[in-house]
């Protein structure tokens, strides 16, 4: 039996995500790059669904492809990048050195995964229980009980990020 019998959706969308990510880091025009990143995020949200994490898949689409990428596109259009200096890329040894570094990182991650894979205690949310309660309800229950402080800190962080972004990007008025 081939691996593709296990769950075709995972393999199809994983392959698609890798191809789109390669396009994203190689294409010169930042607008196309952003569009390829949006498509990569969609593929990743499908993979969240194969892991039965529906809530994460939904906020992946809402937050990343909805909010963050709109922000990116707005900034790309705001900056009006058309000149050669902005689109110029590295040439020569830097490119090859970085690809070698990336391969070293890939091998290192692979070795680490091989050594430590599947170590850890089983939690108390098996898939049947999550299905019975509902994915979003389970996350909400945990967020408002065990993880209340991180949740509140995250909300303050978002407020600070918003205020900081406004202050930094504001035009100085003399």
């Amino acid at each position, binding site marked *: 039996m081939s691996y593709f019998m*296990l769950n075709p959706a*995972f393999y199809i969308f994983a392959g698609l995500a*890798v191809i789109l*990510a*390669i396009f*994203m*880091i190689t294409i010169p025009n*930042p607008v196309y790059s952003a569009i390829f*990143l949006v498509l990569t995020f969609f593929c990743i949200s499908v*993979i*969240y669904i194969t*892991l039965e*994490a529906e809530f*994460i898949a939904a*906020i*992946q689409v809402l*937050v*990343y492809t909805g*909010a*963050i990428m709109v*922000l*990116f596109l707005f*900034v*790309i259009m705001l*900056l009006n990048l058309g000149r050669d200096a*902005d*689109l110029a*890329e590295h040439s020569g040894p*830097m490119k090859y050195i*970085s690809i070698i570094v*990336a*391969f070293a*990182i*890939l091998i290192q*991650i*692979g070795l680490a*995964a091989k050594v430590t894979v*599947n170590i*850890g*205690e*089983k*939690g108390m*949310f*098996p*898939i049947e229980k*999550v299905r019975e309660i509902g994915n979003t309800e*389970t996350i909400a229950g*945990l*967020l408002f009980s065990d*993880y209340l402080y*991180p949740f509140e800190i995250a909300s303050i*962080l*978002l407020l600070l*990020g*918003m205020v*900081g*972004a406004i202050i*930094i*990007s504001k*035009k100085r008025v003399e």
Partner: protein
Amino acid sequence: MVPLAHYLIFTAILFTLGVVGVLTRRNAIIVFMSIELMLNSVNLSMVTFARFLNSMDGQIAVFLVMTVAAAEVAVGLALIVAIYRKKETINIDEMHIMQG
């Protein structure tokens, strides 16, 4: 069910592509998008471990990472806009004002 190793290989490849993007591109916005790709690959590995270990903690962590990533993107893009106003470029090789 797809084995755990396949998910981890996929996330490792995505992370590596993000690293390549950060190292090879000079456009600050594309460097930023590559960082988002790395954050996403780590999110995916956390959800994978959460599923395979019957836990929900990984999904909570992903929720918080997404919050931090949203704040980070807002502030980072504001910084890029501010630098563009001052230097008229977003080529990261020309951003050496902190070099001393």
